[in-house]
């Protein structure tokens, strides 16, 4: 009987807020896959997910996922922050009650982090509760009492910028699994008929048979693989490897520079460099997107551009919820836009800018570096009414023939309530005249206290 394989979130998810308010860490794309997709691709079968309760009905096995331990087969847990997983097949061949740990990475205090475990259902029941609540460290302490612990080399995502800095290499590392899964030949083995599709190093260029390549275009595989799924590449596009274009996407006269991943069903134009677009997002017009991450259902207006390098050539700092401004240690870093973010035309974003879930920003030349979830406006920011935001989300998804499910709507509403404290001090959504009044200041004070209480309840463990 096959192991029950479950990807889980540990304490590290907090470093990815607000990007992961509406998706588990194991659903963040880096390379050709998300962690969950990568595990499934390696194993050739779907894997279950264990995530925060408000996400569980959309991405997991429900809020009370008892069905995960219903089988007598061993249970294999996989850390949802893991990048490539060469250790996964080895773990599945280990004797029952074997735990894999790894060095958490530079600058992090923990001695080891739990990356995987193959354990009996009895032992799984002893740690499931911890993992349901993202307590990976507590689970590891418990597993050490009962199981054999093996230290392995494993790469993990620790901070949002790791998605960007690892993406290029991860595309190359994922390629073997991807080709094994899909079996496409390279363009060296199956050359294209169209002479106006210029292919550099065709042995590193892989194109789905249903992809539409409207020449003239250039696919450059000299610095890394170029993977084009069943997408449409419009004329005058240039794609430089390592890069990946997901199924159903349209590349419109775009320059896709190295280390870029475009997920499924995106429309991309202009210049994109070293960025990750999760999927179902549009950046259809001119404008530069560099070293950035875009969640799902993001729309970027024409000529909206981000900076990814300081004039001082200093390292870029980025706000992380619960930690404040953190020095990323990298020179080039763009913006991080959470799911359902909409940006108007001509908006300029600083390097390290973070915009929270569902925010709608327009009519501003330079957007603030940090914008909380569900924010509406430009010159003046106010809370985005959740009903309005959901109406927009429903329309946007409907254009791609996808229905906003009840579970997704409930999740968005829950995130809206969860993040209300971060919008303290904004103009009231419905009554601007109330600003400055006693009622408003009381509400602001209450919201600030609520935000502080939430942070105090879950103090950050990493610096």
């Amino acid at each position, binding site marked *: 009987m096959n192991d029950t394989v479950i990807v889980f979130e540990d304490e590290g998810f907090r470093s990815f807020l607000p990007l992961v308010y509406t998706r588990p860490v194991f659903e963040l794309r880096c390379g050709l896959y998300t962690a969950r997709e990568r595990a499934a691709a390696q194993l050739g079968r779907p894997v279950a997910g264990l995530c925060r309760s408000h996400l569980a009905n959309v991405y997991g096995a429900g*809020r*009370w996922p*008892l*069905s*995960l*331990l*219903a*089988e*007598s087969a061993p249970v294999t847990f996989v850390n949802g922050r893991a990048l490539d997983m060469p250790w996964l097949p080895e773990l599945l061949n280990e004797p029952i*009650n074997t735990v894999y740990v790894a060095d958490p990475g530079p600058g992090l205090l923990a001695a080891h982090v739990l990356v995987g475990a193959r354990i*009996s*259902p*009895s*032992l799984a*029941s*002893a*740690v*499931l*509760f*911890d993992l349901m609540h993202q307590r990976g460290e507590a689970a590891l*302490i*418990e597993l050490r*009492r*009962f*199981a054999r612990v093996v230290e392995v080399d494993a790469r993990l995502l620790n901070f949002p910028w790791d998605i960007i800095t690892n993406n290029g290499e991860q595309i190359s590392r994922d390629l073997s699994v991807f080709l094994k899964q899909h079996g496409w030949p390279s363009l060296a083995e199956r050359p294209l008929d169209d002479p106006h599709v210029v292919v550099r190093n065709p042995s590193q260029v892989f194109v789905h048979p249903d992809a539409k390549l409207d020449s003239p275009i250039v696919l450059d595989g000299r610095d890394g693989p170029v993977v084009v799924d069943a997408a449409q590449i419009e004329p005058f596009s240039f794609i430089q490897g390592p890069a990946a274009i997901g199924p159903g996407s349209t590349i419109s006269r775009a320059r896709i520079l190295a280390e870029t991943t475009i997920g499924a069903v995106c429309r991309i134009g202009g210049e994109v460099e070293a960025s990750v677009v999760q999927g179902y997002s549009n950046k259809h017009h001119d404008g530069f997107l560099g070293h950035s991450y875009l969640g799902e259902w993001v729309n970027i207006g024409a000529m909206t551009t981000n900076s990814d390098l300081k004039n001082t050539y200093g390292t870029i700092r980025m706000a992380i919820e619960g930690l404040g401004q953190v020095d990323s240690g990298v020179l080039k870093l763009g913006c991080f836009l959470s799911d359902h973010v909409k940006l108007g035309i001509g908006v300029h974003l600083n390097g390290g800018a973070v915009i929270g879930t569902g925010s709608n920003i327009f009519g501003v030349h330079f957007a603030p570096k940090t914008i909380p979830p569900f924010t509406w406006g430009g010159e003046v920011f106010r809370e985005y009414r959740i009903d309005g935001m959901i109406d927009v989300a429903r329309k946007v998804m409907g254009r791609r023939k996808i229905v906003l499910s009840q579970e997704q709507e409930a999740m968005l509403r829950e995130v809206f309530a969860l993040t209300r404290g971060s919008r303290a001090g904004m103009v009231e959504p419905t009554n601007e005249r109330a600003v400055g009044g006693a009622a408003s200041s009381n509400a602001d004070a209450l919201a600030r206290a609520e935000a502080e209480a939430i942070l105090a309840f879950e103090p950050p463990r990493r610096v």
Partner: protein
Amino acid sequence: MLDVMRVIFKRLSSLAHLSRPLALTSVGVVLFALGLAYFFIALYRTVEMPGFVYYLTLQFLPRWSRGILLMGLGLATLVIGIWQLSGVAVIPLSTAPTNTGELVVGFQSTAAPPRIAVLSGGPGMLILASLGRHASSMTCITPVQDPVEYYYRASSLFRFENVYYVAPTGSMAQVEVELSNGQRYDIRQGLAHNQELAPYHVVGMRLIPPQTAEGTQPLLVTRHTLDALAEADAIILGPGSLFESILPNLLIPELREAIKASRARKIYVCNLMTEPGLTTGFGVAEHLSQIRTYGGFSPDYVLVNAQRIEPEVQQMYLAAHQSPVYLSPEEYEETSVSATDRVTRRQILVEGAVVIEADLASSQLQLTASLDRPGEGRTVRVLRHDPDKLAAAILEILRRG
């Protein structure tokens, strides 16, 4: 009529604390109405009104009649309003903190929902699962010899929430019992279904830890189990087979000590019927003495079914060497005065446990069939613990504080 008057008086007296603000409000309304009346009179005398105003203001009636009519209408409206107001739950805020809740703005919160730990078998945990709705957490510690995934499988079918199952140890162990015939058996052999063993009962039991190539593995108790026991407000033993579901876990020293050290109230749900080959001939005291023997403690409470069992159901059980587990007449004589409850009362004590007798069972129709003769299934009426009755009894014990 008297009853109606009593209800009216009771409801209105519940608003006694509102009399002053209501009187003040009435004075305000009267003053406002007077002012409005002067305003209308001035308007009436200075401005020429259309014809329908003559009828609208009842000018065809004498002024005294108009006054009486309007006062009557106003009084009736006032009575209806106060009546409706008295039906709304208006609770005077008490500034004195109570032992069941703390004062918060606008209402009093009830006591926090309890944390519950359960030691039972599969059917028992399914019966108790509805209790999870009333608990902040409910951790079911599965018997050490049972595969925990069976419990997860069953509970996921029923889509229980807030009920968590945890194995007491990292690996399963074997439990061996010695019957009064001198023979030893693995508890998983289904002794209760062996007709030849029906007249006997268990006289001893022991735990056999798992053997590996390195030798005998010590049985370490999982941290979640220890935490659940330490933090629980109530530890419930049962319902379920005494020797198959409850006592095996008490053979683990660390777990036994955790239960003894816990401040939780320990509640034993006594079996409705004896089990052939396991507890044949046992009464409430014998069940409790086994817990004391193997667990080293006496439960604080024992829940015993007091419902009369239908003769035909009893006959069927007797044929299977099973008899109801009731208190014996001697046990009724063992009483003590309890000072722990809000109301001091005499209580029956058996083996140090306060006996709570209640209607806990309900009879159900059950289809039975054997693997040997699957086509010969038959429906029989069996007695089972009723989930709602049992949950109510346990919550009542917890409510007493």
